[in-house]
């Protein structure tokens, strides 16, 4: 029961007045970026990042992770009340959440969503509490070859399970790797891929990429449909909140199943968006009331919300214990860890106990704070949605520009940010996944280093990746995941005249 003791110690760090204040600030800012359509958790967190450089790492990570929880909740608010997903991961919540709210039960819809979200998050945190240090323990024995194999597995699982078109995922990943390689090579010290621009020697910061891809890109997508916030009433009936939460255990199967899907997708980097879509799809297929999905079914809210938050939370597990983030936001946080001088990975559990367990304890507290705050502030943030988009859009552009500039006081970063915005728009429009791109930018260098170190050890033989059972399994698992989309195609070739809709990847189908 070492873990519980460590956890209790973590609580003594997390439950202090300054940290509780940081949680409240983080959650509120998170709800704000979650509610605003052009800003999401990844760029919200990267905006805050430069402001945390002076803080203690524990305080900084508590602020950033609280913002993440807030954003996850905030995204659901607009999905349910306005049919506008504030976050990509809450798209699936609109399917049943909005119809229910429109039919005069907004409180029920919101309370159901928050209740199941809190459950999902709780399962995720419990998983981290018990599993993270164990995984880290196992990972302490990893050499460069094992590390590369784990990275490979992580990237392959994007291709195999991310839900987007496989080749588009591969292109996004490879682009990320190439962008990560720009600048000074850490091993040889030579300058790479600057294409004659001297300023690029410092490399391309992931913050700049995130600002453009998620900020400007999402704004451009949002401006296309001039949405009108046809709000349903945002008044909260407190008695109904407790009644709705009290009814949740009736959907125990859906809750547990969705939490399991969410945790799986969070740890293997499928991410919250894919998790919520997958969970919704499975619930619709297996629920007895599956036919009624889309008309305001409780289970249609429970499933995506639970999976979304379980995935969002458990995405921090591989980040902490292996140094591989499970979602785009976790990738940004991991970038933060490296900037604060911490080395994400198993050594954290040895060297930085206070940091790790403070963070884990803060996840319990932070999610409670988030549920309470989001319920209290629904009317305030709903009112925010009535500000016309034409006013919000330029403000978000300015925030992204200043955010990109403040990373390293460079004008080139601002220009690149705008370029990433165009790429982000094109990618979103054509269903290229963005999360693998960001992930590859953040950990591309580490993956490359692991590969080159293994090659040094083995004197250039690829045999090192099959040298022992563990590394062989990881590599073979990765290859299997890479080939998975191909294998899934095979049966379709036999029954050739399949209905055309079955060909589209999950998210694309859901959006169309």
């Amino acid at each position, binding site marked *: 029961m070492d873990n519980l003791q460590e956890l209790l110690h973590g609580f003594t760090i997390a439950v202090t007045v300054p940290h509780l204040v940081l949680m409240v600030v983080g959650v509120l800012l998170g709800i704000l970026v979650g509610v605003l359509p052009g800003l999401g958790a990844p760029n919200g967190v990267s905006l805050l990042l*430069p402001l945390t450089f002076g803080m203690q790492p524990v305080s900084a990570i508590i602020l950033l992770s609280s913002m993440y929880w807030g954003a996850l909740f905030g995204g659901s608010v607009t999905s349910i009340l306005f049919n506008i997903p504030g976050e990509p991961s809450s798209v699936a919540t609109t399917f049943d959440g909005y119809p229910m709210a429109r039919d005069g039960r907004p409180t029920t819809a919101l309370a159901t969503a928050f209740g199941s979200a809190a459950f999902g998050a709780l399962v995720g945190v419990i998983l981290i509490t018990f599993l993270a240090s164990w995984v880290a323990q196992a990972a302490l024995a990893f050499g460069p070859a094992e590390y590369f194999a784990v990275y490979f597995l992580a990237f392959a699982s994007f291709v195999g399970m991310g839900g987007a078109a496989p080749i588009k995922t591969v292109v996004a990943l*490879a682009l990320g790797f190439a962008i990560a390689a720009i600048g000074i090579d850490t091993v*040889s010290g030579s300058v790479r891929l600057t294409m004659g621009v001297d300023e690029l020697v410092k490399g391309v910061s992931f913050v700049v990429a995130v600002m453009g891809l998620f900020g400007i890109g999402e704004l451009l997508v949002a401006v296309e449909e001039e949405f009108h916030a046809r709000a349903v009433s945002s008044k909260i009936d407190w008695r109904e909140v407790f009644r709705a939460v009290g009814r949740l255990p009736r959907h125990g199967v859906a809750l547990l199943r969705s939490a399991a899907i969410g945790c799986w997708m969070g740890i293997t980097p499928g991410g919250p968006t894919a998790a919520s879509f997958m969970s919704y799809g499975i619930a619709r297929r297996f629920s007895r009331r599956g036919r009624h999905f889309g008309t305001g079914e409780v289970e249609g809210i429970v499933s995506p919300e639970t999976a979304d938050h379980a995935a969002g939370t458990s995405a921090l597990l591989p980040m902490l214990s292996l140094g591989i983030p499970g979602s785009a936001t976790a990738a940004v946080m991991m970038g933060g860890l490296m900037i604060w001088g911490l080395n994400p990975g198993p050594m954290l559990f040895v060297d930085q106990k206070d940091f790790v367990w403070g963070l884990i304890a803060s996840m319990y507290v932070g999610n409670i704070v988030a549920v309470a705050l989001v319920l209290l502030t629904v009317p305030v943030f709903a009112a925010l949605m009535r500000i016309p988009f*034409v006013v919000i859009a330029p403000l978000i552009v*300015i925030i992204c520009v200043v955010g990109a*500039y*403040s990373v390293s006081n460079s004008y080139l970063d601002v220009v690149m940010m705008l370029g990433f915005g165009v790429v982000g728009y094109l990618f979103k429009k054509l269903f290229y996944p963005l999360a693998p791109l960001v992930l590859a930018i953040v950990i591309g260098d580490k993956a490359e280093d692991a590969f080159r170190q293994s090659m040094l050890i083995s004197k250039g033989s690829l045999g090192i990746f099959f040298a022992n059972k563990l590394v062989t399994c990881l590599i073979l698992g990765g290859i299997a995941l890479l080939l998975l989309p191909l294998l899934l195609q095979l049966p379709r070739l036999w029954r050739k005249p399949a209905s055309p*809709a079955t060909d589209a990847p999950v998210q694309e189908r859901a959006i169309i």
Partner: protein
Amino acid sequence: MISRRTLELATAVLTGSFGVAVVVSSLDNGIGWSSAGVDAGTFPFLTGIIVVLGSLYNLVRGVVPAATLASVPIAITSIELRRLVGLFVPAAIFVAAIPLAGMYVASALYVFAVLAIPRHQSVPRALAMAGATALALYLVFERMFQVSLPRGALASALGF
């Protein structure tokens, strides 16, 4: 009006040409095996190759549209395009104006122009919002977080 096919092609060409640039540029660093281990250019070279091959595949998929593409032939309608341009062009001008006008002046002008010129807001309100934006930037960044934003060539010429 832009068709889904055109957009797919344009994106594939964009990613593909970046891939080619990466491949060519990484050749300068040397690829393959040397006495110091794997050469610096190897990893970028491989990713560049993957980008190029993947883009080619996406290009072909774009030219020969599958059933799914045919179901949404139009990616951006002309109205949507106008809205896109309406957001992006002012933003690009704003970014272009930063070196000259500085962050504060450029932001204020940008907010004012976007709100007042298409008459979304009355001129006094737009002015107020522009002023508030610049002030908020100053307070948050210069004062609270001590990040100095660029003041621009114009301001330094005037001696600020």
